[in-house]
């Protein structure tokens, strides 16, 4: 992970500030930094999103391709995740340096999405046992400014919301062989329901309090963090402890309560922005990296 070197005095300053509910940039312990979300940034994809959370910059592209369903689930399509920690974020990620972090992120994403209520994979099936839609979700880490998991989960949710899968019809002829016909109209497509897609909230324990959305400097001071996956209704679907330090059970329960509260607020704001973008339709001015 990209890291900063902090002196002891700086660490003490951060820890003491957090005890008074005042962080270095003036936020409270439960406040997020300013989040910018934009969808449909890359045109070669079925759906894409870019999320900028402080100095963390994530770009997610979703490509829908036709494939064969997995043997265990012949009536469902599936999602494949891939994370690329690009060298843009830090020179340590050059070549194969970013693979460790990438593997960790991919495994977390698989765990969250393996829950059957997250995405309706049955709608991705075209012909049971023969054809289904495979969604390749590719995450590109452009800049690392702390709190990667949260930003990635927001970007994945926004990209899935933006994904447009073309409608197909299955034609069966006399011999029984099936042909798949793609609709001629490029705007004729199915959208995914992302209501149940959870967002990851990372809570870092600094001193005796916990903070949401830690910056790189705060992450360097924290002993341990708890990663929670929260849905829009406040249900917890996944939990993981990260870091070298240890947490005692009471703080875990406190962090869970904070996580659920913060998670619900995050979901409502994100949904509002996505709906607003959607309502602007084609008149929306695409900014991308130029703005």
């Amino acid at each position, binding site marked *: 992970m990209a890291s900063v070197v902090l002196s002891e005095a700086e660490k003490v300053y951060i820890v003491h500030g957090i005890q008074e509910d005042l962080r270095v940039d003036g936020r409270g312990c439960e406040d997020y930094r300013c989040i910018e979300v934009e969808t449909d*940034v*890359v*045109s*070669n*994809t079925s759906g*894409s999103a870019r999320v900028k959370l402080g*100095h963390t*910059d994530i*770009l997610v*592209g*979703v*490509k829908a*391709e036709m494939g064969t369903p997995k043997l265990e689930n012949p009536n469902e399509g599936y999602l494949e995740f*891939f994370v*690329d920690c*690009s*060298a*843009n*974020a830090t*020179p340590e990620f*050059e*070549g*194969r340096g970013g693979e460790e972090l990438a593997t960790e992120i991919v495994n977390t994403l698989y765990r969250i999405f393996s829950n059957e209520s997250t995405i309706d994979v049955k709608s991705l099936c075209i012909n049971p046992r023969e054809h289904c839609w495979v969604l*390749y979700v*590719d995450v*590109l880490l*452009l*800049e*690392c*400014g702390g709190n990667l998991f949260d930003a990635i989960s927001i970007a994945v949710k926004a990209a899935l919301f933006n994904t447009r899968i073309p409608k197909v019809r299955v034609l069966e002829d006399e011999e029984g062989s099936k042909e798949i016909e793609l609709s001629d109209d490029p705007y004729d497509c199915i959208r995914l329901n992302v209501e149940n897609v959870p967002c990851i909230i990372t809570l870092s324990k600094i001193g005796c309090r916990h903070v949401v959305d830690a910056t790189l400097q705060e992450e360097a001071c924290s002993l341990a963090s708890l990663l929670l996956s929260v849905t829009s209704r406040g249900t917890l679907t996944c939990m993981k402890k990260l870091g070298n330090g240890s947490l005692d059970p009471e703080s875990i329960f406190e962090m869970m309560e904070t996580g659920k509260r913060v998670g619900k607020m995050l979901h409502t704001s994100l949904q509002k922005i996505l709906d607003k973008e959607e309502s602007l339709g084609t008149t929306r001015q695409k900014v*991308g*990296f*130029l703005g």
Partner: protein
Amino acid sequence: MAGLELLSDEGYRVDGRRAGELRKVRARMGVFAQADGSAYIEQGNTKALAVVYGPHEMRGSRSKALHDRALVNCQYSMATFSTGERKRRPHGDRKSSEMTLHLKQTFEAAILTQLYPRSQIDIYVQILQADGGNYCACVNAATLATIDAGIPMRDYVCASSAGFIEDTPLADLNYVEEAAGGPQVALALLPKSDQIALLEMNSRLHEDHLEQVIEAASKACKDVYAVLDQVVRDHVHEVTTLLGE
């Protein structure tokens, strides 16, 4: 593709441009705050992002340090969703390694490496959307990023591709024109002194036509230079205004 004319009788190309016309170039410097220098460029539908770190101490093996100049280290990578067909590996395959070496060669010619002995300059380029002219967009983005990082260069490095169809040289090829299989020339130029930093040609071209094609590519590079220069001046103006000077 049967019946797809790359150059119509009236002189229009597939996307409506004329033979010597470039695609729309839009660029921005200083995209990322944490890197020493960064830039983003859009040439038509091709989008490239470049980030520069350095000059800094050698990372990794000290033995590779050059006693009299800086080492330029590049990496070219394409996002997996950048091409029409999903790419399985962002970097490490042969094409990316070749592009990496080309970038290294190009920038070693332009950067004043003698000023920083025993140090390293990292240039990382990422293609977000590939629609032809990938190498050229990378070079242009990396030039802007190097300028943003404040690393001294001999001159801007501007790159453009050119092709040859029906006795007419075409400038700035897009993906459809590249995939058609005709001759293509990629040229990286130092505009003020007209020095060529990199020249690469694919397919078959009669040597009588070579000069025409290189001429077309040089002119396209100079046009790109005009745009990039304007972008740099606007950026410097903006930054100095914000600093209150």
